[in-house]
């Protein structure tokens, strides 16, 4: 691990200012992904600003009937919250489908959103990777790409956004609240939060340097039946090959987002509109224009079958 200095911030804007004034600074939430990457020297921050004392660890009811989830709320606490289990079950299910009990206890809501890809070439500093070292090339294209993205990719990067929680947040139309060093706040719809790689795959999100996530908000409950189905290489503690987050109404209409297939949680209006026609129609819409590799073309078939299973699960519930 490269050397760094450490401080604990005492206010959100103070934390943002502390990061903004060091080019090499990063926020430290739970640290479960950042420290892993620092040990490998994939991440080499020179200064860490710990946000644990900012009192961002509460889940509050909002006047519009929604919830405001503090950035530092642990994944376990969020998934176990009674209001979340009752009104946003897809979020509880998605969180519990990811990582391990130990990691969920430490990982935070904001950190989960900001976790980096698990593309094996991103992790291996001996390999070219445009996301880790811009301009070095992409070893995944033409390499081992079974886990990687089938849509939203570019000729610079085919990495997948690895998380589960954000796929549920996408289907729920959550918003991300931030503050910057001057105390200015902004609200970013989750749909716009993660970027597609294009020519700058090293930039994962629309956050600016020194912009701190303070909360994630959920709109008032949608109703419907919530389901999160995840297919992976072992029954627990593995990243998704394909995951489906869906909220389905009794008449078969609904909304759906896919994980494990793209550089961001993948949801399209045309796919939502096709829900009454069934899984095949939805996946044809959602993955129109997909560019799978030889290794991961199976994900298109798997997405249809996973969504079909999710719809069947809702019908028999």
């Amino acid at each position, binding site marked *: *691990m490269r*050397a*760094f*200095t*450490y401080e*604990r911030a005492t206010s959100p804007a103070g934390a943002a200012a502390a990061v903004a004034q060091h080019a090499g600074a990063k926020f*430290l939430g*739970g*640290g*479960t992904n950042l*420290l*892993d990457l620092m*040990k490998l020297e994939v991440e080499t921050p020179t200064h*860490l600003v*710990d946000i*644990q004392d900012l009192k961002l660890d509460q889940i509050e009811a909002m006047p519009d009937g929604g919830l405001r989830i503090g950035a530092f709320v*642990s994944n*376990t606490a969020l*998934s*176990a919250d009674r209001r979340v*289990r*009752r009104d946003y*079950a897809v979020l*509880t*299910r998605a969180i*519990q*489908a990811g*990582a*391990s*009990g*130990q*990691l969920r*206890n*430490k990982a935070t809501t904001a950190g989960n959103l900001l976790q980096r890809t*698990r593309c*094996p*070439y991103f*992790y*291996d*500093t*001996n*390999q070219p990777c445009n996301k880790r070292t811009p301009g070095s090339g992409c070893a995944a294209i033409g*390499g*081992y790409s*079974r*886990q990687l993205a089938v849509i939203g990719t570019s000729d610079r990067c085919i990495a997948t956004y690895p998380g589960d929680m954000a796929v549920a947040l996408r289907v729920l139309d959550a918003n991300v609240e931030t503050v910057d060093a001057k105390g200015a706040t902004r609200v970013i719809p989750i749909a716009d939060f993660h970027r597609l790689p294009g020519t700058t795959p090293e930039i994962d999100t629309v956050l600016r340097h020194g912009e701190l996530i303070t909360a994630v908000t959920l709109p008032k409950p949608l109703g419907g039946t919530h389901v999160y189905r995840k297919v992976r*290489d072992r*029954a*627990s*503690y*593995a*990243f998704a090959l394909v995951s489906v987050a869906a909220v389905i109404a009794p008449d078969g209409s609904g909304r759906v987002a896919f994980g494990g297939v793209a550089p961001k949680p993948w949801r399209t209006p045309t796919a939502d509109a096709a829900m009454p026609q069934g899984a095949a129609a939805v996946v044809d819409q959602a993955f129109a224009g997909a560019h799978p590799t030889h290794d991961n073309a199976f994900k298109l078939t798997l997405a249809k079958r996973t969504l079909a299973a999710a719809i069947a699960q809702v019908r028999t519930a």
Partner: protein
Amino acid sequence: MIDAMDVVALHLSRRGVIAGGVATVAITGAADARTVAPTQPVATMPLSVEVNGRRHDLRLDPRTTLLDALRDHLHLTGTKKGCDHGQCGACTVIVNGHRINSCLSLALQHDGDSVTTIEGLGQPGHLHPMQAAFVKHDGFQCGYCTPGQICSAVAVLAEIKAGIPSHVSTDLAAPMHPTNAELRERMSGNICRCGAYSNIAEAIAEVAGAAA
């Protein structure tokens, strides 16, 4: 963490590249030059942490993980370093009542925290019920993962009692129960390379039954 299957596949393909690639040799050389570059002295920072009921005041390099602080600075070597990347669970300890991977946490993040390690759960002569159950049910072979397994198991039963759901819980509104499927899912962050899983599950089930 990264999936083990990917790492295996990548290493296989990398070996193939190294066998025939000149460019790879150049990249490897650059990486070696980086690792031998002289490092600057690092300023240490103070922290105070309670471990197994006893307060310790330390000054540490900010890079020190909680795991390394426990093992190398407090000489509590019961907590094991397995993968050092949050994949195996051997380093599991209980912090403020919650189990975490001590390898993926900076010691400085725990200034003011209360940590329980395997040494704090019980000692020879007065074992914690979970330690005794692991002995009774042969919940280990080599024993390297065992401290992490036991710390995790103690916390798992507390999580079930607190009503925290899991991936295999069928009803999110109902109370949680320590069924075999629940225990196996909740323990999936602790790998046992000897494969003592069935005995581990029996040991935890016995303690869960006794506590119910």
